[in-house]
């Protein structure tokens, strides 16, 4: 470790030193083997045997029974029995088992001792999986939360991230869209980057493998625990990938003596609630509105000396549409089933253990024609060669298939939902003969296809095969010194096919259109080799745990895509029938990471705890001047309750104070980003295509990872023998060198360059309390409540000015001194009610569409008497004041009941759907309240909706009328279960049936469909709080069963 702490660049020489170091280690390891044979040769004096059980009489397998003060010890077998030779009849046995209180038993010359262990309510001895190992909860000095999958198992959802909503302080989990199998966004402690929406997600580590693919396709039924590492001291061992926090997932492994077969299944129905549906005009209202639009055009035309504009016949008699017309949103929706089946086999002996899980999931989307299927299997096996060597193999293949067309986003991006709700309600979905109409056209509106056809006839099918596999060996070299080596692979083969028939189309492009199709293949994998040495030893009251290791990971991606057109007809919905093809795309991407990891955990009497860790990462993504990064961390803890002076306060059963500081990074920057590259720039001469090449970007030899430094101070305490436990953390994080594709003057010949620019600060408080309100025996009730407060502030934006981005119509802005992602635009103050109001107010005088009486009135924030881009100001804050969650669990006899709620308070949302659904050009269907717009000085309407004026650009700019409070409280899950008594059944150990409701009720004043939305808008830097219309998140009611076979 000493070799790596110097601050000079990590050159080839120091790599060789590291390699030599590892080679030396191997020599030590090998020679140490020779010593092993000479161990344990003490004379035998007294044999003691017995059985270990729990207080309720259950046999406990794998309990450590040792002779106190010696290394001499054994584990109980599958029947809970042990046999141990001790020094003499006066020896003392030390009996330790996870989840139980450690017990000391004097032998007192008894040859047979049966021991009962008491449950440990305090959970201090619970083992928690942490970076590169595990730790007893009582010894942890960082901010770490772990969740057992069993506690969240009943939710009828497809992704585990949906299950942990509302469960953990400091972890904001939002379901941004309801697309089956997609749409979860997780931000730990406010983590953000400027370089894309995906790269602020935490690092997922499954059984020790940092994943390179997404986490969505992991079957939640395979998971044993989630550990969420939040502060820098607990994540620092993941170095340049740790800045967004780390979620460690451990899959299920059978224990010795465990033999079971379990079957879990549920079937549910998903529906879209009425609340939050778009409130657009019906056919009668719309026809009246369009009649007004044409009257206004007629008036203007005549005023300009024209001959007038006739009102189209469709709009002359609005009442003819009473009870008729099309509700386009409703047309796209359906009630949809979701079903899941999982079978798990657990089998364990002293020698080997196996867990095998297979699962099938099938979710129809609530939007027509969308579907998600997942078939998954996992086999985790471990084999003990002898007491020294254990090898294991985990293999988990998954196949998933997603069918979903372009549902989300704004109309110009082709978002089907927004396009459908803004299209004409007087236009029918079907012809009188029952066949589907081709287009949705009404006079004055843009050409539109029949959006039901687009949703059902367009194809966008993605298939993804994945293999996640690890092989590992643990070798005990000498007592307390373990070597672990592993080889891991994460392989994904993704295939996508799209199809758009001639009967499909888009805004401005009503059918018939040219049919088109595309296909892509995206194959990527990463392999990871890890070698670690771990030494755990106690010298009297001094307990040491030392880790050193070396890891190497490489990622490779092959991407190929092809699109074509020129189809003779719509009969073959595949690229195969295309006759003309666009230039195909082929790309190969790679990155690599070579790292050294080390950690020292030390404690004195389990009372004073110190942990120090260090990682050094070298990555292909980092530029020559920044090739290596050092990521140190240190943390301390004090188990105050173990001090003598605390023994007089019996109410406090545990109290621990913690503090930690560390440095880590975010390496989610582009591959080869620092290298000036070339690109293909072909030209044709005289009709002949001629190859051309040009420089594609400006190089940057200083490009580096994003850096994050974090201080965490926390306390854990429990009262009344663990009945109430409380955890609190304060954190202060500074993130700097944020990568951004910064705009450069176009005069350079380029538009942007990748550079590390910004510095941000995050501060926050996290608080959680768990209370065992009632502990039975018949009625048990526990409550967990957690709440977090996160504040962000932009400290610096580098040499590029005081705000980003410079897109004049961006929805969010990053401004020095302000929180992240603030909304930026005009401040809406009403409409110019009359000529006097108009004359007295500031106006937009631009030549394109100047203000007039009845148009929108914005605040003249700079007081210069005119409204222009300089009056844009901060109009909202999408960052919630706090987020919170609460879970209640009750059991009464054979019944169990659980409720989980999750919410956020105080964040604003920007409903950009209104840019279209309240547009006053007369080209879209609009919300019902537009009927109350300004019509004349005598009839000025509600003062909110301006008059009909074609081309009023200003009204379509980002303004505060689109901003509203996004606070919400969602009842995420309610489950009621009943365990059927199975006393005398020869085959079935237990059966539990349950009903579960997901996303039951959303309490919010927000009028859009989903207050958790956070869409992408243009070139904004941090895209938060933006609603561009997304796939609705359904309410699901399900019925399930858990069966355990003997």
């Amino acid at each position, binding site marked *: 470790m000493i070799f790596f702490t110097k601050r000079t660049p990590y050159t080839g020489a120091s790599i060789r030193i590291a390699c030599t170091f*590892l080679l030396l280690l191997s020599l030590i*390891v*090998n020679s140490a083997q020779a010593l092993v044979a000479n161990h344990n040769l003490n004379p035998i004096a007294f044999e003691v045997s017995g059985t270990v059980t729990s207080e309720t009489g259950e046999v406990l397998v794998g309990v450590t029974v040792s002779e106190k003060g010696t290394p001499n010890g054994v584990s109980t077998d599958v029947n809970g029995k042990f046999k141990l030779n001790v020094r003499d009849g006066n020896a003392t046995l030390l009996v330790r088992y996870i989840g139980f209180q450690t017990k000391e038993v004097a032998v007192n010359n008894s040859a047979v001792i049966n021991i009962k262990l008491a449950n440990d309510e305090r959970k201090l001895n619970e083992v928690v999986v942490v970076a590169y190992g595990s730790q007893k909860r009582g010894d942890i000095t960082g901010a770490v939360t772990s969740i057992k999958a069993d506690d969240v198992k009943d939710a009828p959802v497809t992704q585990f991230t949906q299950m942990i909503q509302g469960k953990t302080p400091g972890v904001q989990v939002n379901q941004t869209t309801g697309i089956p199998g997609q749409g979860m966004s997780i931000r730990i402690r406010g983590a953000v980057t400027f370089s894309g929406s995906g790269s602020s997600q935490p690092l997922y580590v499954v059984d020790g493998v940092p994943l390179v693919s997404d986490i969505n396709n992991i079957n939640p039924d395979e998971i044993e625990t989630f550990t969420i590492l939040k502060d820098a001291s607990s994540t620092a061992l993941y170095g340049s990938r740790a800045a967004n926090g780390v979620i460690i997932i451990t899959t299920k492994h059978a224990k010795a003596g465990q033999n079971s077969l379990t079957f879990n299944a549920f079937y549910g129905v998903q529906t879209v609630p009425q609340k939050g549906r778009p409130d657009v005009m019906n056919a009668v209202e719309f026809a009246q509105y369009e009649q007004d639009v044409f009257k206004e055009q007629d008036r203007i035309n005549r005023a300009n*000396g*024209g001959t007038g504009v006739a009102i189209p016949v469709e709009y002359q008699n609005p009442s003819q549409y009473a009870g008729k017309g099309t509700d386009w949103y409703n047309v796209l929706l359906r009630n949809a089933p979701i079903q899941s089946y999982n079978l798990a086999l657990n089998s364990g002996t002293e020698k080997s253990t196996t867990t095998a899980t297979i699962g099938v999931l099938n979710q129809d989307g609530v939007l027509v024609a969308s579907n998600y299927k997942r078939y998954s299997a996992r086999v985790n096996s471990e084999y003990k060669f002898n007491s020294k060597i254990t090898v294991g193999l985990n293999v988990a293949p998954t196949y998933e298939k997603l069918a979903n067309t372009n549902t989300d986003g704004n109309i110009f991006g082709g978002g089907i939902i927004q396009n459908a709700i803004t299209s004409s309600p007087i236009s029918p979905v079907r012809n009188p003969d029952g066949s589907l109409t081709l287009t949705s056209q009404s006079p*004055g*509106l843009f*050409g539109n296809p029949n959006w039901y056809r687009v949703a059902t006839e367009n194809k966008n099918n993605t298939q993804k095969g994945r293999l996640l596999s690890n092989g590992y*060996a643990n*070798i005990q070299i000498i007592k307390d010194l373990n070597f672990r*080596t592993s*080889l891991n692979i994460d392989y994904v083969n993704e295939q996508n096919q799209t199809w758009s028939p001639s009967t499909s189309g888009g805004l*401005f*492009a*009503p059918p018939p*259109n040219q049919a088109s199709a595309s296909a892509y293949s995206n194959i990527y994998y990463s392999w990871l*080799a890890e070698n670690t040495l771990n030494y755990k030893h106690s010298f009297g009251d001094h307990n040491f745990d030392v880790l050193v290791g*070396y890891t*190497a990971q490489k990622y490779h991606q092959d991407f190929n895509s092809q699109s074509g057109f020129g189809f003779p007809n719509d009969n073959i919905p595949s690229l195969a029938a295309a006759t003309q*093809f666009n*230039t195909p795309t082929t790309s*190969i991407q790679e*990155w*690599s990471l*070579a790292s050294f990891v080390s950690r020292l955990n030390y404690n004195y009497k389990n009372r004073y705890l110190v942990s120090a860790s260090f990682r050094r990462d*070298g*990555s*292909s993504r980092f530029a020559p001047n920044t090739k290596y990064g050092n990521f140190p961390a240190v943390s301390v803890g004090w188990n105050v309750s173990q001090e003598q002076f605390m023994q007089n306060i019996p109410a406090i059963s545990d109290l621990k104070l913690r503090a930690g500081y560390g440095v880590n990074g975010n390496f989610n920057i582009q*591959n*080869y980003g620092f*290298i*000036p*590259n*070339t690109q293909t*720039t*072909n*030209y*044709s*001469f*005289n009709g002949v*295509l*001629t*190859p*051309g*090449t*040009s*420089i*594609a970007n*400006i*190089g940057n030899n200083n490009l580096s990872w994003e850096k994050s430094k974090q201080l965490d101070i926390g306390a854990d305490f429990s009262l009344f023998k663990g009945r109430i436990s409380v955890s609190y953390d304060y954190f202060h994080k500074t993130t700097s060198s944020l990568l951004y594709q910064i705009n450069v003057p176009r*005069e*350079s*010949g380029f538009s942007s*360059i990748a550079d590390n620019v910004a510095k941000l600060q995050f501060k926050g408080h996290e608080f959680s309390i768990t209370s065992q309100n009632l502990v039975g025996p018949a009625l048990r009730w526990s409550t967990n409540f957690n709440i977090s407060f996160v504040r962000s502030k932009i400290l610096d934006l580098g040499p590029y000015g005081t705000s980003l981005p*410079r897109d004049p119509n961006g929805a969010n802005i990053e401004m020095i001194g302000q929180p992240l992602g603030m909304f930026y635009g005009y401040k809406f103050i009403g409409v110019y009610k009359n000529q006097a109001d108009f004359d007295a107010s500031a106006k937009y005088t631009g*030549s*394109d569409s100047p203000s007039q009486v009845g148009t929108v009135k914005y605040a003249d924030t700079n007081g210069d008497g005119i409204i222009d881009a300089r009056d844009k100001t901060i109009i909202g804050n999408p960052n919630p004041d706090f987020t919170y969650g609460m879970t209640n669990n009750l059991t009464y006899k054979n019944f169990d009941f659980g409720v989980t709620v999750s919410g956020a308070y105080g964040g604003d949302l920007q409903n950009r759907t209104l840019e279209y659904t309240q547009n006053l*050009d007369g*080209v879209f269907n609009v919300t019902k309240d537009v009927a109350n717009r300004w019509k004349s000085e005598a009839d000025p309407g509600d003062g909110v909706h301006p008059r009909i004026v074609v*081309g009023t650009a200003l009204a379509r700019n980002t303004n505060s009328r689109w901003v509203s409070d996004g606070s919400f409280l969602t009842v995420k899950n309610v489950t009621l279960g009943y365990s059927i008594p199975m006393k005398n059944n020869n085959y079935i150990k237990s059966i539990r049936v349950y009903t579960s409701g997901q996303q039951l009720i959303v309490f919010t004043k927000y009028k859009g469909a989903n207050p958790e939305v956070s869409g992408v808008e243009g070139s904004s830097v941090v895209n938060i709080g933006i609603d561009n219309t997304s796939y609705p998140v359904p309410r699901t009611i399900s019925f399930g069963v858990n069966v355990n076979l003997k």
Partner: protein
Amino acid sequence: MRTRILLAGVLALSLSACKKSFIELVPKTTVTEATFFRTADDYTQAVVGSYVPLRSITNDAYVMGEMRSDNATYFASPGLQGGQFSDKWNISGFLDIAINMNGTNKYASCYVGIARTNAILDRIDASTIDAAVKANLKGQAQFLRAYYYFELVQYFGGVPLHLKEVSSVAETALPRSSADDVYKQIIADATSAASLLPAKQTTLGMVTQGSAKTLLGYVYMTLKRYPEAETALTDVTKLGYSLVPNYANIFASRNTAESIFEVQYLEGPQGQQGNFAFQFAPNISNVKNILGPSGDNKTTGGWNKPTPNLIAAYETGDTRKNASIGFSYIDGDGNTVTDTYCKKYTHGPYANFNNTGDDWIIYRYADVLLLLAECLNEQGKAGQAIPYLNQVRSRAGLAATIAANQADLRVAIAKERRVELAFENHRWLDLVRTGQAISVMTAFGATIKTQQPYLPANAYTNITQNRLIFPLPQSELDINKQLTQNPGY
């Protein structure tokens, strides 16, 4: 023992990953700058890449070059809105502001071309490639750099003068140079290019000595340096160019005997296409009977509509009138509609919507003859000028000019350029060069608004000296604080 073998194996594996090269990866599907610019083929590909911005510049050049003038406006387009429309309307009616995508595209595309030529010109002198190849490639790069700067200086005035490859953020921003300095650089580059380039290229469509001399002629004419312009343009007449007998054929085929500098397009999916035939077609819901493929042209088309004023400028019997202007078309339902549109570049049927392969001629021989006539007349050599003018008139089926004195001939040449080169993006720059822009456009604006009542009431009300050049894009001023905006914007 088994353990030791396993351990040794694992360590050997991890050591293999210890090599420094493990974390030094280079792109596998692209060539990096470090390994490019070695061979003649590399330089050739770099020069080919420098032509590419011409496609996008030329495809939209009519907005600032023709719709700004009295030759063209646009069709009525009720209900349509948004920047893609208003930016063009605003340029046409002198209502444009510094945020305008057409202005930004021209500015940015020219500089993309300049950066590509700078990267070549920085390196080519020191390279060891064949001398003849080097001279030809260098000449092409210098011509292109000169052309891009000439576009910039004519439309925006003095601009930042980047003559070296930009290789760091610090080098991306420069202050504006004076228009004089920009012109000096253009003349230096074009003069050198004229001496390096051959009169004829093996690959048709690549720029030649004639291209460079024509560019030089234009530059000198713009600077009113008539004797130097006369030399350059007279040289062009000795390079073997000739007028294509049938006017319509100039635009119907590629790289004719008349073509001096022509931007090359290719129809199809290779990304080499233009779409100006669609942009100039009427904005109707189906253009299949005009252009071939079915498609809604409402948001694509309706631009560069011939003005009554232009139509009136054609003399009786002028064969160019029907070759340039369509007076009726058949709509999607098969009905004949009587209305005018620019059909000079319509050579369907095209296979696909919005995808054409027609080239766009920037300089051609008739243009040189008329420019030379103007040049001679301005120097008081009306007698020498008239034969050049008549050559062009004769091809159009017209009698010799009756103008005899300098003043009459000046009017005759200007009118001849207007109709001969209608829709070829010369009219606006001709008006500016000859000092006619303000008076002509003011008179035109008053009339056109009565003929086309859908034009905004405030269009053509702000025609001043300041409006003879366009604003620098606002996005540039925001980033490069050394820039100053043109007065009046």
